[in-house]
């Protein structure tokens, strides 16, 4: 691996709160130096980053890679490629595959497939319960040993208060968070979208905001009871944001993420029964979207996660009730963050990058999210001013179920380095 000199970019490193024009020198897969006028060693490749932003690679705590079991929708390799193309250098794979990632062996499989893919790093999240059945705890210790960085039954909530309590307690031994998909299944049952005026008009069964908020409240209360770390996935309602704010004021170990689609879209997007607007949690109302944005601004919501959920074309091409939930998100997350949060002045660019790299890396205790000397050279270079149109044929994911197709986003990834290796280079794709 030759040395790399990334020259003259705007280097933003939220981990050290630095922002200024500098060079970044990469040697042996690590950050060797960051500063002005770093000389290139003989044989080093030079990347001109003038006018571009150079930042720690993005970190996504919540993706679905569909392998094993649903490889027609996505594989670990295609998901990791999609991640790299979106500027992500580390992604965390949810365990709702077939079989479920609920053991040392299945965690190991994800790790091995990710190494073979050699794109973005892929960290497995183990299931909380065996088969995600909501009954018996999985072997957290062995899964952590094999590479799991958190546990979750995502796709569904941690089924009972008792299971959540024991999971939070048991997870403390291994220093990992329990990530929960907050949904009261009895309230949400049969729901296809947010419960409100649009669901009433479209004749679709609604999922009330209360379905999420009840479980957020439960998890916060159990975090207090156990002293465990609960990470709340894909927060979507105003009430959830208020509950998390309250939990943080009490000093509880509660962290939270929100998705780009929840800070961008509302339930109105379901008009016309577009199945690419069908997700769980559903797109909510304008006041909810605003609360999520404010939560990201004031830190109540710690980080942005894509909830990348690939689905094969056929499965989305059907009646709204029967279509699966979720959208692909790895390649549109940065562009939406810039367009929706930075350009309107809600977040500064360094704040956005903190919420997409440094902060999530800290929540799951992952390497990365920093350009500190000696850290692995996980780096993204992007042009924040470049506007681009999301086109189906340009996406690297195996699935293209996105409500943002045809939209113009801001900020295009030029280069993604993972451990000093080029994982994505838009200027010259064939060298990959």
């Amino acid at each position, binding site marked *: 691996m030759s040395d790399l000199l990334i020259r003259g970019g705007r280097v933003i490193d939220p981990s050290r709160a630095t922002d200024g024009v500098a060079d970044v020198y990469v040697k042996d897969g690590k950050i060797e130096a960051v500063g002005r006028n770093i000389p290139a060693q003989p044989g080093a490749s030079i990347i001109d980053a003038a006018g571009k932003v150079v930042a720690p690679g993005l970190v996504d705590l919540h993706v679905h890679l569909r392998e094993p079991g649903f490889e027609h929708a996505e594989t670990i390799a295609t998901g990791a490629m999609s991640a790299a193309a979106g500027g992500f250098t580390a992604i965390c794979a949810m365990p709702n595959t077939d079989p479920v990632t609920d053991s040392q062996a299945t965690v190991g499989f994800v790790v091995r497939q990710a190494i073979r893919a050699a794109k973005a790093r892929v960290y497995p999240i183990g299931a909380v319960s065996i088969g995600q059945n909501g009954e018996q705890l999985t072997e957290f210790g062995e899964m952590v040993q094999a590479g799991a960085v958190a546990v979750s039954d995502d796709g569904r909530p941690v089924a009972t208060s008792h299971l959540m309590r024991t999971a939070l307690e048991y997870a403390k031994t291994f220093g990992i968070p329990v990530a929960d998909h907050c949904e009261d299944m009895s309230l949400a049952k049969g729901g296809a979208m947010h419960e409100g005026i649009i669901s009433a008009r479209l004749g679709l069964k609604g999922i009330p905001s209360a379905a999420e908020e009840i479980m957020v409240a439960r998890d916060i209360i159990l975090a207090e009871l156990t002293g465990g770390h609960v990470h709340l996935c894909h927060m979507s309602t105003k009430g959830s944001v208020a509950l998390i704010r309250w939990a943080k004021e009490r000093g509880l170990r509660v962290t939270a993420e929100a998705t780009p689609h929840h800070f961008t879209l509302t339930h109105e997007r379901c008009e016309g029964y577009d199945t690419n607007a069908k997700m769980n949690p559903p797109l909510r109302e304008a006041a909810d979207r605003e609360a999520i944005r404010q939560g990201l601004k004031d830190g109540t919501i710690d980080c942005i996660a894509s909830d990348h959920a690939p689905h094969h074309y056929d499965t989305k091409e059907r*009646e709204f009730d029967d279509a699966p939930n979720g959208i692909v998100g790895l390649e549109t997350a940065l562009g939406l963050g810039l367009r929706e949060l930075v350009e309107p002045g809600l977040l500064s660019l360094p704040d956005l990058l903190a919420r997409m790299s440094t902060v999530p890396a800290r929540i799951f205790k992952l390497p990365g999210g920093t350009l500190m000397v000696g850290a692995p050279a996980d780096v993204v270079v992007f042009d924040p001013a470049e506007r681009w149109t999301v086109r189906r044929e340009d996406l690297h994911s195996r699935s293209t179920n996105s409500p943002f197709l045809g939209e113009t986003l801001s900020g295009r990834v030029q280069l993604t380095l993972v451990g000093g290796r080029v994982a994505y280079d838009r200027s010259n794709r064939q060298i990959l």
Partner: protein
Amino acid sequence: MTEPTLGKDLLGLEGLTKAQVELILDTAEPFKEVSERAIKKVPALRGKTIVNLFFEASTRTRISFEFAEKRLSADTVNVAASGSSVSKGETLVDTARNLEAMRIDMVVIRHGSSGAAKFLADRIRSNVINAGDGTHEHPTQGLLDLLTLRDRFGKIEGLKVAICGDVLHSRVARSNIWGLLKLGAEVAVCGPATLIPPQVVELGVQIIPRIEDAIAWADALNILRLQLERMQAGFIPSLREYNRVFGVTRERLARAPKELAILHPGPMNRGVEIDSDVADGPHSVILPQVTNGVAVRMAVLYLLAGGGPDWRSGGGGDDR
């Protein structure tokens, strides 16, 4: 000013203008007479092929459409697709492609999923008529209710209509709300709060919690069928109590300050949402609704096929 037309499909009343709704009702008017003839047939849709694609069983609506089609001289095929939404067999998109390949002119679709008619309409060139999609809309039912009210009261504007019962799960309620509001009626809904979506007030509909108050307020009651499965799903405790608290009974009607018209889209649960002596009583317009159903469906089919006002001369659609 140009005459209003219906466009390619009839998916719901929400998307129609007042002029379009009135066009359908006015077109239906002379079609009523066709059904009174000895030979109940006009050649308006001769040579047109129509598929009645029913993913849900519905004797009443299917027969009404079939009569409407036959009285317009169309060639019709009935397809009763078994299984509802999560089909064991062919997907809706494949069904759509197959219909397209058979070059049919019109599809009448009844489906258990909201949005299914639009899904089909977006994918085929044929005209699509929604004969009920999930809990979304049932536009021809809404239209026949409007026609029946217009027959009875002379006009819709200013009329007070209370829609009673399971509004939450009712496509009939949605189509009625849109149609009535567009024609200037005042609309209220009445039923247990578990079956009334509170957001209807945002549409300009008032909620009247008690049936006695709805009866005192209204000129007409449109009484929805209470699906028996609502009890199992926990929306109401029992049919017995439903009848006691929300049922439209003769005693309750007797206290009304004026004579109300009683509508019901059928099939009725006698003794649950409506008592027999109300259903069969002097103010019931339930059978005229059925008669008007055929006329309204003839009008919709005729207009979507491109028909002008001159069907009596035999020239509708492509015949010109």
